């Protein structure tokens, strides 16, 4: 069983880092987590976003969830809302695509056009 001593050690470490980080959440990633999203595999997508951001030590992105975004047939869906409030909607995601969005969009600022809703609807 995971011990409370371990938790205490993590706490101490986090406490040291907390002062160093810029806590302003400039970018938001919102994952659709209604029945449709969950059934289509939104949970591993959300975990991939969180883990990849952590791996790259990116602190200014807040990953959260919302209800049904409205196009259930394109789930799992995630929206990236940047500091200016501009929204990019990504569709038919999986964990691997989520990691690529972190690298290209969230780190380098270039949206992954081929995963966007616009691209998905064009190819129909």
């Amino acid at each position, binding site marked *: 069983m995971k011990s409370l001593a371990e*938790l205490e050690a993590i*706490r101490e470490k986090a406490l040291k880092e907390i002062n160093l980080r810029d806590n302003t959440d400039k970018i938001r990633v919102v994952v659709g987590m209604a029945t449709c999203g969950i059934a289509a595999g939104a949970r591993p997508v959300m975990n991939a976003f969180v*883990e990849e951001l952590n791996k790259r030590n990116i602190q200014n992105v807040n990953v*959260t*969830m919302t209800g049904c975004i*409205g196009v259930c047939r394109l789930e799992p869906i995630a929206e990236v809302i940047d500091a200016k409030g501009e929204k990019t909607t990504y569709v038919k995601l999986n964990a691997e695509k989520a990691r690529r969005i972190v690298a290209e969009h969230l780190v380098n600022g270039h949206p992954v056009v081929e995963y966007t809703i616009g691209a998905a609807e064009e190819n129909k």
Partner: protein
Amino acid sequence: MKDLSLHLLDIVQNSIKAEATLIIIELEYCAGKLLFKITDNGCGMEPEILEKVTDPFTTTRTTRKVGMGLPLLKQSAEMTGGSLSIDSVKGKGTVVQAEFIAGSIDRIPVGDMDETIKVLVQANPELDYEIYFRNEMREYEFKTSEVKKMLNGVPIRNMEILQWIGENIKDGLKEVFGGVLNEISG
């Protein structure tokens, strides 16, 4: 839904929307039955809505007319010969309880409870969760309020802390159900 942990993630969304601050999740194996119970202190439902809530064409959403979360859980329970019951008091909260016949060939596995809890805590760190796993001999409990107290101001939404929570829940599941249900990794 493939497993119980995905149903859990889905049903808890209802509690979050009902503005609950505490969500209690119980999974209990007793006399051949697996009880899966979610209790919240959210806004509850009017009796008229409660009556229709397992009808897939009932939803409080205004954008469209379907709501599949509870009907799907009902289906999963009934497939095994079990049942679903919902109690709700307006202003007090809601209890959703699904009863599965554990040995039924149609019973879905428990799945990755730890992944679901990690996602829930990550997305809504201000909410509190209590998790209980029980069988005839053992009990495991986990309370986010206790973790927060121990963290003493350090945010719970920290990757290492979330991982610790996930591992803790995985251990609990193994300790209580390992060998009885033997399906921890889904």
